[in-house]
Each structure stands twice: as C-alpha cells, then as structure tokens.
C-alpha cells in the first residue's frame, strides 16, 4: 500500500515539468562545480605529488562538491516537497486517501518514500560524476561511500521537514517558504556563538552542517547518523499526527 502511494507520487512528480527542470538545472550546476574542482585539483597536483600522505581526489574534488551540492539541494527541496500534501488538500484529492482502507501512517510513509525516491534519483545522477573519475585515477571509495551516505541522510532529513511543512498548509508556496526557512535555520544554527573556540553546545548539535562535515571527511560516526534518523523520525511522525488531526477539526 505504501509503495502504491509512493509510486503514484513519483509518477505525478515526473508528469509535471518541475521534476525534469529540477534534475536538469541541478545537474548543470553540479557539473559546473565538479569541473571547477577538477581544475583546482589539476593545478594543485604537481605540488601534491611531492607530499607524503597528501589529500587525494576524494578530499579535493568530491568533498567540496558534496558540500556545495547540499546547499543547492537545500534551495531545491522546498520546491519538490511543497506540493506533496498541500496540493492534495487543495484539489480535494485527499479524500480519496481518507476514504480508502489505508492508515494515516501508510499515507505519510507512501508520500515520503515517493519524494525520497526522487531525491535518490537526483543523488544517483550526482554520483555519476565522481564515479567517472575511476577511469582516470585512484579513488578512495570509502570516502566516497561516506559522502554519499551523508548526502542521502541530509536529503532524507530535508524531505521529512518539507513533508511536514506541506502537511501544515493548503498553500504550496507557504509550505515552500517555511521549509526553506527551517532548513536554512537548521543549517546555520551553530553560527551563534561560533566565535568561541570550543563550540560543542546544543546549537552545534542541532546544526545539520555539523553532522554532515565529518561524513564528507570520511568519518562515520553513529552520533551523526542517529541525528539524521531522529530528525527524519520526528518530522515523519509529526506529519502523521497532523494528518490525523485534520479529521478532528476544521
């Protein structure tokens, strides 16, 4: 049942020009970033060759690429998630789901997986770029895998937040702007007090960026993974509750 809803969600996304436009534009920007990083690497290469234990392609090309890609996707996520529930409510198609024998949890998980599948396609296309380097150089696949995991977790968290914001409102644009605001806030929340040397407070823990950076360096820590899983569970759970409450009051 969840997959039926997810499949329809994904299908509807690709039936609108929005999904194609997002894939095309992000791919173009990723490619530009990728090539400029490659160029930087080529410039650095003679000096790196002389160093013992010098940073490799994964550090100089892939980590910055993924770091920038996450920020671009922060801008793009609201556009993908804004319609997920608000549009159903606006066009009154939500009653199809409500009167069908499916639970609220199934509806939300279906919607979430549909959006997630779109983001996985997007990540898959992004991954092709670093993987193309295998043909010409040695690649630290461990670091690449950690980076990819980080990217996936960040996007999964973005999608969960976007889904919840879409569950809150009937206006897709309102969902988009609130999603964008919350994502950006979570991204930069550790800026407060960042002039202190040791910044290990609550705000630093809440920051998405803080949990993403170690993964890009190839550092897999269960704290970071748990952070993303908690964010996902929290916002998916809140969305279920919100949808349930919809029948109670108007």
């Amino acid at each position: 049942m969840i997959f039926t809803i997810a499949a329809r969600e994904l299908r509807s996304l690709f039936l609108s020009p929005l999904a194609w436009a997002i894939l095309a534009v992000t791919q173009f920007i990723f490619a530009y970033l990728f090539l400029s990083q490659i160029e930087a690497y080529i410039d650095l290469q003679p000096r790196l060759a002389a160093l013992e234990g010098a940073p490799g392609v994964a550090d100089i090309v892939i980590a910055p690429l993924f770091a920038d890609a996450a920020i671009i996707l922060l801008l793009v996520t609201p556009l993908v998630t804004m319609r997920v529930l608000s549009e159903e409510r606006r066009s009154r198609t939500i009653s199809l789901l409500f009167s069908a024998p499916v639970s609220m949890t199934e509806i939300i998980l279906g919607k979430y997986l549909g959006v997630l599948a779109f983001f996985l396609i997007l990540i898959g296309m992004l991954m092709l770029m670093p993987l193309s380097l295998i043909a010409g150089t040695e690649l630290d696949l461990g670091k690449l895998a950690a980076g990819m995991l980080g990217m996936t977790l960040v996007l999964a968290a973005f999608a969960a937040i976007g889904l919840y914001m879409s569950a809150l409102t009937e206006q897709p644009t309102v969902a988009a702007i609130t999603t964008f605001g919350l994502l950006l806030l979570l991204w930069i929340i550790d800026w407060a007090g960042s002039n202190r040397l040791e910044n290990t407070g609550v705000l630093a823990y809440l920051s998405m960026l803080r949990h993403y950076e170690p993964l890009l360096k190839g550092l897999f820590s269960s704290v970071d993974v748990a952070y993303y899983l908690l964010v996902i569970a929290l916002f998916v759970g809140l969305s279920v509750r919100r949808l349930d409450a919809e029948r109670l009051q108007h």
Partner: protein
Amino acid sequence: MSKEVLVRVEQLYRYYSQTCAVDNVSFDLAKGEVLGFLGPNGAGKTSTMQMITGNLAPSAGRISIQGIDLLDRPKPAKREIGYLPEQPPVYRELTVDEYLHYCAKLNRIARSAVAGAVATAKERCGLTDVGARLIGNLSKGYQQRVGIAQAIIHTPAVVVLDEPTVGLDPIQIREIRALIRELGAEHGIILSTHILPEVQATCNRVQIIHKGRLVFADTTAGLEQRLNATSLIAGFSRPPDPAALQQVTGVDRVEALEGGRVRIHFSDGNPAEALVERAAASHWGLHELTPERRTLEQIFIDLTCTEAPVAAGMEAA
C-alpha cells in the same frame, strides 16, 4: 425490517467550534436502498457524509458499516465504502486507466483482480472509450463519471455520493440516475442533492436535514402519500354561493380565488365526483376541475423555512 443493515448511524454530533453542524442524527441504511439526503446549503449533509466515509471525525456518536465500527476499526470498515465527494477526487495529470488502477490498488484489490475491476468500473460508468485520455482534458461530466467509477471500483457495500449530478447535462443526468438505480440493487446508496425531482426519480427513501437535524425521514412511497392531493381547484361560469359548495359531501373548506375559481380543501375522500354531479344539477357552469398536488418542494419549504414550528415540534418530540 429483515433486510441486512449496511450502515448504522447513531446519535451523531459534529461541532465546528461553537457551531453545531450535525445534531443528533441517527439512521440506518439497508441493502438495496437508495437514500436521498436533502437539505438547504449548510444543513450538514456533506458533514454527515464525510463522517460516514471517515473523512471527518464525529464529535460524538457511532457509525458502523456492516456491523464494523468505523472509528474502532477504520481499515476493514472503509473497505466497504465508496465515496464521491462534491468535487471528484481525481488527479488531473493521470489518464483514466492509470487513475482507476491506482484507486483499485489503494482499495486493496488483489493484484490479479485489478485489471478486471478497472474494466468493470469503466464499463458501468461509460468510460470505455476514454481510458487512455488525461483526466484533466475530460469534460466535467466525464470527470464526474470517473469519480463514480472510483467509488464503485472495489464493489463496496455502501456507496456515498455527494451531489453526483451537479454540472452535468440533462442526458448525462439521466444516465447517472439510471446508473445509481442500477447500483442501488446490489449496494446501499446514500446520495445528497438539491434537486428534488432527482430524489423522486432515483431514491426509495428520503431524509431531509435542516440545521444539522433530521426533520423528515420516510420512504418515497410514504412521501407520495403525503404528496397526494388534498385540494381541488374548480372554475365556474356562474359561481355558486360558497355555503352551497360547503354542503357537497367531503368538502372541508372553500377558499375563493379570483375569476370565479375556488380552492376546495378535503381530507378524506375526493369530492370531485359529487361536486361534478352537483354542479351539473345546479347549472353552475363548471369548466375547470384540477386536483392540486403538493410537491416535494412544498414539503421541503414547509420543513426548512418555517423554522419555529419545526424547532418546536422537534423539542416536543
């Protein structure tokens, strides 16, 4: 009644903050019944239907579908419900086939039976020719049919239709009404409408809801009884004295109208025959005699516009 009860609604209430939209509504729907739900705008028809279909949680009361409590066990109960809201819940970007396949799967029809269910629903709603077309490009009438197809695709025990003929042309209305009657044979149907003749054409039971309360509930046959004539209009060339008319057997009261016409009220036994005999004998020059039928519209207006007596009646009851 020995018939199988499909829907049982008991003491249903629904409040929107302070406003009481549905106030102590109870009724049953048996198999083979087509129940017409009438009421002015904002009477609580849609709220009641939304509650029966699980789209809205009641403030108080019980709803059971084939004996399954909708609030305790929503999943098995909802399997037996098909719902067409006021606005058909269609995805404009899908084709009719894609959409109906999705609805079939959503209603947990077994994978192997999906294609058959879609074909049957399409055939019943006259959608066979438009299967490959985008729903967004179909006319309103066809979208409405897609909405009905969606509601019956899983052959639910109960089909709830909220104003199914709004925005259709007269031919489509006839077709949809025929479809509803056909469905009524094997499903229980609840339909709401503003169009009073529609109720007489399609339903075998009628309920009128006003300000959230049920103010009238009867079978269509019982309704016909109420609609039967209780007065005659008679026109005379040489109008007699009202007192003379009053003496005709069966006449209760005589009301003079302009142009030598009178309205003759009676309660038991139509006095038309006696009146004609008397008129011929007395040379009144009877040239018009029409039984006056009350229309459903009058009953509807009586029940919904004369607020004080209705409210008083309900409180007394």
